[in-house]
């Protein structure tokens, strides 16, 4: 079955995306990519040090990975646009995960500034994946602006609390034609599988992998869960009922 996710003209098989932050050392990143067959990996420009080959995080990301630079640290649209342009100029490609956070307490995305940044960056030729609080009107605005996907949070970033925003994400999946990629808050592979069963196009998790005792094994577990969830979605889940339903009904003879 050919079930590829296509974003910005690129075909993606592994629908589990991960990140490069919070790891105990950078050397673990290529191992994660290889073992978990990661195809899309996000990296914060704020951590990219082009002047130091040893510390430059980009040198730890295998070349065939799709690099998803993020605008971590941006507090408004203007800063996000600036960071995205600098990332592209520094050789990080033309994909960008817009991350605008002006709240250091909960680290919630600023949807309003994110939409503004998306409008500008699409016009500048970027493949734009905005990270947002799940909100239908915001997602529609991003769709109109020409975003390549929408990345709603499952729970506040880094909390590992799972799909707390499930009902809102479900609405985005039903109403928005763009791929919905659940990003942030996912703490366990089972939660990633749940998002995929609902019809999410992909899942991104960083903290859950980076802070696991064995990040490589955890990345593999997430990849497998995401794959299983996707297969279940494609197979069409059976309906859920409150009472048991006999598989040999008494009135079957009437059919």
């Amino acid at each position, binding site marked *: 079955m050919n079930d590829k996710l296509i974003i910005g003209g690129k075909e993606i098989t592994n629908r589990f995306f991960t990140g490069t932050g919070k790891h105990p050392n950078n050397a673990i990143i290529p191992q994660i990519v290889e073992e978990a067959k990661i195809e899309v990996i996000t990296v914060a420009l704020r951590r*990219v040090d082009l002047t130091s080959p040893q510390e430059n995080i980009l040198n730890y990301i295998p070349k065939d990975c799709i690099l998803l630079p993020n605008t971590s640290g941006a507090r408004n649209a203007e800063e996000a646009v600036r960071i995205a342009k*600098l990332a592209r100029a520094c050789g990080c490609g033309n994909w960008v995960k817009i991350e605008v956070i*002006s709240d*250091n307490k909960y680290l919630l995305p600023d949807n309003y500034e994110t939409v503004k940044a998306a409008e500008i960056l699409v016009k500048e030729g970027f493949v734009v994946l905005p990270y947002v609080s799940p909100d239908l009107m915001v997602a529609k605005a991003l769709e109109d602006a020409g975003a390549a996907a929408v990345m709603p949070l499952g729970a506040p970033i880094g909390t590992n609390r799972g799909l707390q925003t499930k009902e809102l994400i479900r609405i985005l999946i039903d109403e928005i034609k763009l791929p919905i990629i659940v990003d942030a808050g996912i703490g366990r592979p089972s939660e990633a599988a749940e998002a995929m069963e609902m019809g999410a196009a992909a899942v991104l998790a960083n*903290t859950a992998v980076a802070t696991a005792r064995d990040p490589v094994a955890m990345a593999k577990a997430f990849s497998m869960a995401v794959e299983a969830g996707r297969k279940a979605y494609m197979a069409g889940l059976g309906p859920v009922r409150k009472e048991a339903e006999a598989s040999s009904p008494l009135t079957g003879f009437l059919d």
Partner: protein
Amino acid sequence: MDFLTLLSPQAANYLEAMAQKAHRLTVQHFGRTVLLFTPMYLSNYCGNQCVYCSFSSNHRLVRKKLTLDEVEEEAKSIAATGLRHILILTGESQKHSPVSYIEDCVKVLKKYFDSISIEIYPLTTEDYTRLVKAGVDGLTIYQEVYNEETYDQLHPRGPKKNYRFRLDAPERGCRAKMRGVNIGALLGLEDYRKEAFFTGLHASYLQNKYMDTEISVSIPRIRPNIGGFTPKFSVPDRSLVQIILAFRLFMPRMGITLSTRERAELRNNLVRLGITKMSAGVSTEVGGHTIKNSTGTGQFEISDNRSVAEIKEMLLQMGYQPVFKDWHQLNGERAGEQLL
């Protein structure tokens, strides 16, 4: 009130339980990472007479202010160790180290560092804004002591006498859109439980009101200095640990900065308890990073003389990533502006 309980003598019986939770929260929010930086002393001219500080104006020592060429030499020497975050310091002297001088230094430093923080005398919002525009992204300013009476006694003369102007400085930094503001009390000058409590309340007030600024705290214990001031209150290691843990449990996302005032072994052990930023390869002398420029007298004696490479190695051995760069300038040569 929970925060007060965490700082209480009773809570000292539960340090291990507090430590386990603090460790979990720190890993969750920051990963196993520690940001490294180093201070660079630009000038030790000072009009204050803080009784606990070697740079006090009534001490006779070689006074020096780095020329811009010397700043550049220091910068090269520090940047060669891999550090990309720098904290610049001066004594309080509008005559010798005015804002325009700081601005000029920042221009030079921007070529070598991705993040520049200041630890200088308190400024007005306008002056902080001016420095933010010049490329400063972080402000460190300690109240030293929150108890107003003690503050008055320990700062007998000079502009620092103005308690209120100093107390409100972090807030002015937030208004000026500093990305990070780091506060603290110099532990040993007063009852540390009260001082830590006020530091925490101050941090919490700032973080709630200025959500777009990253608030962090330092936990500096007083160190030997010229003048031989002996602190009235002792702060044993156990108490320092309790303060760190209480901060982490009170504000799980807050940065906690640890300086080389503490000895190497203790610093290693504190990493797991909630420290997120550490200084490395430190000199508290003006020009201390390039021998020929140095004055020979530091602001205080440090306890951890390890080089950046040694601190880096220690962190890696512990399973922690030393982070050298956690911000990217948005303009200038270093940002990659010329590539746009």
